[in-house]
């Protein structure tokens, strides 16, 4: 299994900041776009179950994966931390663990 892109990013307000990995502008923009779409869908899923406070999202497809979680407390100096990976589907929980 190969990965052509790995990027660990953080969201501060409306800005995406690269923390580790290849965090160029296209990567950050892609992360923001993908995360926004996934977040919207996750909210709808949670609403259908009666749960409205989303804490994390992970999605893995045949081309890569995306994961992000919201800050647990104000001690974490970010609003959300996420990960974008290219190169094949991954174990969902391992993607989530990588955001910690």
């Amino acid at each position: 299994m190969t990965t052509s892109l790995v990027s660990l990013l953080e969201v501060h307000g409306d800005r995406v900041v690269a923390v580790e990995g290849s965090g160029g502008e296209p990567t950050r923009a892609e992360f923001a776009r993908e995360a926004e779409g996934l977040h919207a869908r996750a909210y709808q899923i949670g609403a259908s179950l009666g749960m409205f406070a989303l804490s994390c999202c992970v999605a893995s497809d045949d081309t890569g994966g995306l994961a992000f979680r919201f800050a647990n407390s104000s001690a974490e100096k970010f609003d959300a931390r996420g990960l974008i990976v290219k190169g094949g589907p991954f174990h969902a929980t391992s993607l989530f663990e990588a955001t910690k």
Partner: protein
Amino acid sequence: MMRVLGRKKWGEGNEVASYAPVLKALSALKRSSRLDGTVFIHEGIILGTDTDLSDKQNSDFVREINALVSQYRNGGRSLSRALFGFDAGAVLIFHTAPFVLCLLFHRLEDAAEVEKSGEKFLQTWSKALKIKQPDEIVLPLFDLQKALAGSAAPVAAEDSIAGQSPEAPEVVAVVAVVAVVAVVAEVLDPVAALEESTLKESAAAEVIETSKTPDPVEPVMLTQTELPLAMDIDLPGEDAEAKISDESKEEPTDIIGGELAGETIHEIEDLTEVEKEPTSDAAAVSDAGAVSDAGAVSDAGAVPEIEVDPELTESEPVGAEEAPSTEAEAVALEVEAASPPEVIVSALYESNPVVDSTTPECATTESETAELSETPIPDQLMNLSTSDPGETWNSFRQKIENLLSKVLGRAQAVRLIERELDAIGIESGTYLLAPQFRPFGQKLMQKVKDKALRNQLEMELIALIEAHQK
């Protein structure tokens, strides 16, 4: 609660089977892994649900899952796995076309074990369901440290606005130059260019060793906790309507009944009707006694002793006159129309020497004006309590001054009360009766512009009035 919504069948030739064994195994998985629920979908159709959710919630959930799968499919990708953590639970989604397996569990920390259980389940049933090979179902674990070790150095943190995808002109320019060089090289020596590009790709590719999931499936050590049901959101409209209906049932009795009791009005009307008939004075007096029996007059003992002036019986209701344009005019008209009752008032005040006024109080709203216009004024004045009404009024006025002083200066509050009393024809040295405290107080409260303050003052006003009407 196991629901088999769709009993799809498949088969090859004459061999036909149902999904019942799969759903049964799924139910066992739920028990063994202590899941909160399972949902099994085939091409967007629910095959079986085993959750504590209602049917509508299940269908809504499946609709959203289908939308998620479609969202990826429309983007040219195929969703493999998804995990959503919420405050009260988590959802893990396995997508192995054409099936979608959703596992609902309580603690996000147990996601790894639940995922292993789900993989194990799909591996077991992969052949029967004719999905991927068992090896393909188990996805590789992602190791961030290994991935980052082989990746490029971190890019200098240049922020980008979330949700936007600005152009990267520098990168585009470099790519364009490289592409031109590659094309030229390919024209000159295609074989060498192909080898060179292959080498570049292999060098650029970061090989990540990903371990398979060798760990055996372990039972999830979850506490037996029910998945919280969806919140029953009470429609605000229903509550509001219920409250409004309740209030509408209570408010009129509070407001109107407080000042002008319905029984009193009817009794008064009966009285006037009887008095219009050619009867003797004695009959009129006996009818006046009937008013006290009706409970409208609290000091009933004094009423029969009143010597009723015959002119009173001939007085017409105020409502026969033209409707006043303003409240002040209405008050003036009513005061004028109420001149005959002065005899009764004076007679009443003889038994109550503290009272030194004969001017009746007036309504402050149009509805109350209408009520008053239909009601002879003297009957309101007869509605006296045993306590001294003058002292009650002075006490109430002092309290309402204090109340208004919270938002106005003391002098302003006094002037406001005097001005309002003048507007309704209450002169200095006269007073309002207890039933008129509330409309008068509410009229004063209308002068307070701030709604929140006004509401608060009105609440205090009501308490004040109730204290004075006891």
